[in-house]
């Protein structure tokens, strides 16, 4: 019985952390203080709910947080401003279950704070997971594959910087908003990708990223790229059941069991993307979503519309020129059967220093040689790809591919 109370409270903690901290930060403008109060509230739950849960747990949490806030304010040096604050807090209504959209403004401010450009990405991601998504330090460390102690230190230093450097809880000025929002989207996508690369994403980073983006969407609707990112993440998420086998081995797209794909989610993502693209404000996330959508809508690998994918990569390269995207364009060209074009692209790319140590370049070369039925050169490039590969599950996949290729050579 008490074990399930524990789990229940942990679930509520995770569900409402973002909101409650946003609410408390709007009163105190101090993340550490807000966390202190929130943690005190949660600690009380374990005590006070021993004999049963309240009717509306989230309402209870909010009332408790508010009462503690009033208490702390009364103990601080009084000012006219604080007196007014206490008065308005006392007037707040209690008793209604928290909706996701509650304290939306405050949550948005907190998101912009956690994703402030004065914090590097490596700090933004764990901070967002901690503060907005309600993950605990050990959970974040496991999800990001880092040492718990060093993550704790990183979080402490980050929160300290927010306090000492005066990173504000505010929605950016209109002229800063587009750039700042792009920054937030980048952080969310990075956060999402940490979940994608985890065999079972046990801390549910993908879902957290999607929910966070959906929340932002309600507050900043019709933002094309925000919706593009949402659609992109939904397409990726729809395939997560098929991405890894039981042993945690990575299964590439071409070999995934498509019966395990979430067709409802794919349908929703597709509808969202179609609506979004009508706004004619095409951007990188929308194009990436369109590419993933084409993969998701192909019932078999053979029916994948590689021509369209190649075209989309062509557009993407123009908006976001990068060797990696050009490489993906080359791979799409290979799959679309435009081998000459692919060869040109790859030859040009091979001269780019940045990409010469990138495993995927040699995978692309290997695939091209395979299509040209040049097995020895294909093997050579797979071997080089494996030597450069940093990601265990990809390495394993490449090794197995190399093994079967060597097999065909000996027969």
């Amino acid at each position: 019985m008490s074990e399930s109370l524990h789990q229940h409270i942990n679930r509520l903690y995770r569900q409402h952390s973002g909101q409650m901290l946003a609410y408390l930060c709007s009163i105190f403008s101090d993340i550490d203080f807000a966390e202190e109060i929130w943690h005190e509230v949660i600690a009380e739950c374990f005590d006070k709910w021993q004999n049963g849960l309240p009717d509306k747990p989230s309402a209870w949490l909010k009332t408790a947080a508010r009462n503690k806030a009033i208490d702390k304010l009364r103990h601080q040096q009084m000012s006219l401003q604080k007196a007014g604050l206490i008065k308005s807090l006392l007037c707040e209504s209690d008793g209604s279950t928290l909706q996701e959209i509650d304290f939306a403004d405050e949550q948005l401010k907190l998101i912009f704070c956690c994703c402030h450009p004065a914090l590097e990405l490596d700090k933004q991601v764990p901070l967002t997971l901690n503060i907005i998504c309600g993950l605990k330090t050990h959970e974040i460390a496991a999800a990001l594959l880092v040492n718990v102690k060093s993550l704790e230190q990183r979080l402490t230093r980050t929160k300290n910087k927010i306090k000492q450097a005066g990173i504000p809880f505010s929605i950016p000025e209109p002229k800063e908003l587009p750039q700042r929002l792009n920054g937030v989207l980048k952080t969310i996508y990075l956060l999402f990708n940490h979940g994608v690369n985890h065999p079972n994403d046990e801390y549910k980073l993908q879902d957290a990223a999607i929910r966070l983006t959906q929340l932002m969407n309600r507050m900043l609707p019709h933002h094309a790229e925000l919706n593009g990112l949402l659609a992109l993440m939904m397409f990726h998420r729809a395939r997560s059941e098929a991405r890894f086998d039981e042993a945690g081995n990575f299964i590439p797209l071409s070999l995934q069991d498509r019966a395990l794909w979430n067709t409802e989610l794919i349908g929703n993502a597709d509808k969202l993307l179609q609506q979004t693209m009508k706004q004619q404000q095409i951007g990188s996330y929308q194009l990436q979503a369109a590419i993933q959508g084409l993969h998701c809508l192909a019932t078999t690998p053979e029916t994948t519309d590689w021509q369209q994918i190649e075209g989309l990569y062509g557009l993407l390269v123009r908006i976001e020129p990068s060797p990696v995207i050009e490489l993906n364009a080359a791979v799409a060209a290979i799959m679309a059967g435009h081998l000459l074009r692919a060869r040109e692209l790859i030859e040009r790319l091979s001269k780019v220093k940045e990409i010469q140590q990138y495993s995927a370049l040699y995978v692309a070369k290997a695939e091209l040689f395979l299509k040209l039925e040049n097995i020895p050169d294909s093997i050579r490039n797979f071997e080089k790809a494996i030597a450069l590969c940093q990601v265990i599950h990809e390495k394993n996949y490449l090794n197995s591919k190399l093994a079967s290729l060597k097999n065909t050579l000996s027969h």
Partner: protein
Amino acid sequence: MQYLMLIYDEEKAWDNFSEQYQGEVLDKYHQLGEYLQGEGILLGGERLQPTDTATSVRVRNGETLISDGPFAETKEQLGGFYMVECRDLDHANEVAAKIPSAEFGTIEVRPIWLMQDM
């Protein structure tokens, strides 16, 4: 909140600017100073003589060691500073972006450690 804005740029590059361009930059600094005064946020600020004129002092084991030059050889050198009172970091960054050297150098924005925080 109080911030120190440390102005870093390449002294060599400055030396290579035309006299006219140098003059334009210094004019902009003058205007900035007036702007900050007008806003009531300027707490201090000075231009520094180049690092050729710097002396570094260290005391180790009771011995005072004097050496010629800045504390370290760096690509960009400290050329000046402003001390300002700003609402928050966003405000401070906005001010920093107005500093003329931001266009060819780097402004480091550092919160001042106020004694009452200790």
